[in-house]
């Protein structure tokens, strides 16, 4: 049941993101007579403080949450896995330095570093992606490093080394496939984290700039009209929570299925 729920929500989310621009939506169209109209049969999800249709804005907002999450998780996964694998495989002083760098990045609590980076880089889509990626790679690097450390002494790796396989061949062909499962799970939870972080930055006014809709900035706009039109906070908030909840539930499921703890040991 739960899997059905999360699959359906996620399919809708991705479909909105990919096909949203093809739909006849008018997220910036102002209908002065409809200002703050609550949801009804005629108004679907209602209208915001400027008379813009919330349904259109939620659909277009899905686009940014999805593509920011996709980009940030891809970049973080690639960079983090690369650095983590290199660090564990090469070892020595290189590993020592990388571990310190990871520790330093982890010392910034939550999305604080992303807030600072986005604030200083200035608003905009690419800066949001840069800020969140600079914060995001660390988790993947730490995970990959721990897993590679636990695996690099295995017999099949020694056999490959004895056969003269190069460093890259061993990392790519003999180590990474074994740690794919935990990386997939980490990526899933990272998507949920990034969706919230992107909305958080937009809520603070540091993300995608108006009039382009983002779920975070829609919630912020809504807080000003909460008493008269709570739907302005409820609608984008529910969209955000449904997506994050679905991704988290999917991650939980994947963790049970792939049973990571049973297969790979060696936590830091």
């Amino acid at each position, binding site marked *: 049941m739960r899997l059905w729920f999360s699959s359906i929500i996620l399919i809708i989310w991705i479909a909105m993101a990919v096909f949203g621009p093809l739909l006849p939506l008018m997220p910036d169209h102002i209908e002065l007579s409809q200002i703050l109209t609550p949801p009804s049969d005629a108004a679907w999800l209602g209208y915001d403080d400027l008379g813009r249709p919330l349904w259109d804005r939620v659909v277009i907002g899905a686009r940014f949450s999805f593509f920011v999450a996709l980009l940030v998780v891809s970049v973080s996964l690639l960079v983090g896995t690369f650095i983590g694998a290199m660090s564990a495989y090469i070892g020595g002083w290189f590993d020592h330095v990388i571990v310190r760098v990871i520790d*330093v990045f982890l010392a910034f*609590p939550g999305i604080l570093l992303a807030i600072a980076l986005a604030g*200083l*880089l200035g608003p905009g889509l690419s800066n949001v992606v840069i800020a969140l990626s600079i914060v995001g790679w660390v988790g993947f690097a730490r995970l990959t490093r721990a897993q590679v450390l636990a695996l690099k002494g295995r017999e099949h790796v020694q056999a490959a080394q004895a056969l003269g396989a190069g460093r890259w061949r061993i990392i790519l062909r003999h180590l990474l496939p074994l740690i794919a499962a935990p990386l997939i799970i980490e990526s899933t939870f990272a998507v949920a984290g990034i969706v919230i972080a992107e909305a958080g930055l937009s809520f603070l006014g540091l993300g995608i700039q108006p009039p382009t809709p983002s779920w975070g900035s829609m919630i912020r706009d809504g807080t000003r009209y909460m008493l008269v039109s709570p739907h302005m906070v409820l609608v984008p908030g529910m969209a955000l929570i449904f997506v994050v*909840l679905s991704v988290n539930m999917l991650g939980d499921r994947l963790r049970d299925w792939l049973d990571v703890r049973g297969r790979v040991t060696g936590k830091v």
Partner: protein
Amino acid sequence: MLHFIFSRLSSALIVIIGVSALVFLLIHIVPGDPVEVMLGETSQPADREALRHALGLDQPVMTQMLSYFNNLLHLDFGTSLHSKRPIIDVLLERIPATFELALAGLLVAIVIAFPLGMMAAVRKDSVWDGGAMAFSMLGVSIPNFWMGPILILVFSLWLGWLPVSGRDGFASLVLPALTLGTAMSAILSRMIRASLLEILGEDFIRTARAKGLSENIVIIRHGMRNALLPVITLLGLQLGTLLGGAVITEIVFSWPGVGQLTIDAINQRDYPVVQACILLISVAYVLINTLTDVVYAFLDPRIRLAEGQH
């Protein structure tokens, strides 16, 4: 034990130096000329040069960095561009509010998470367990910046029980603390459940039951006491999420703490203040974690005694 404390403190020091260096570099990622961004495009060249000189940005980077670290050692964060006051004074004004909020949030998290996590573990796979874990899943999926406004809507605007925002007595603390605390309690209750479940499968629990102890004593005295140890470490780590979340919660409730100062400073392009705030929160987080590790080592005789033999 001393050896352990020393090694933890020295690695904390290295991390703090690294964090400071990264915070120093922040001003150099501002696109274009940071002085022009801070003062605005219409500023006079003379003013720009004065600020550039005051911030040391006309010096070579290494010189800048050395004087930056030198100033940090003297707790000199510079002067706020906006209020023209020493940043350390501004920070000291704001710290109590953030400390109060974080502490209250932590308290809420503990009060919710312990009964919930323990109940879920003891009645594993029951309706209670399912309910507690559903709450936890929902809790990690609801962001502070939505939870806060909804609580304001219900308890301030509709029911009129609590103030909407600001920091004015206990009543104004309730909603921000609930916002911050419920998010953390969601994660914490999962940890408590997992930790207690692991302990309840141990042989000494079976022994305790076999010798006829009441279930309450088995769970609390034999189970929870042991399950608490890993939870303490995770609690320290989760304080990071709490501090990060405090920034957004402070914005939602206009809570006059360091988080609000950070965002105001970003909006006013008062970058020295931004740097000081980020540094302060991160260093506080590192110190809390180091303290947690030391407390953990002290509480766990396995670590305390093993280290003592060195």
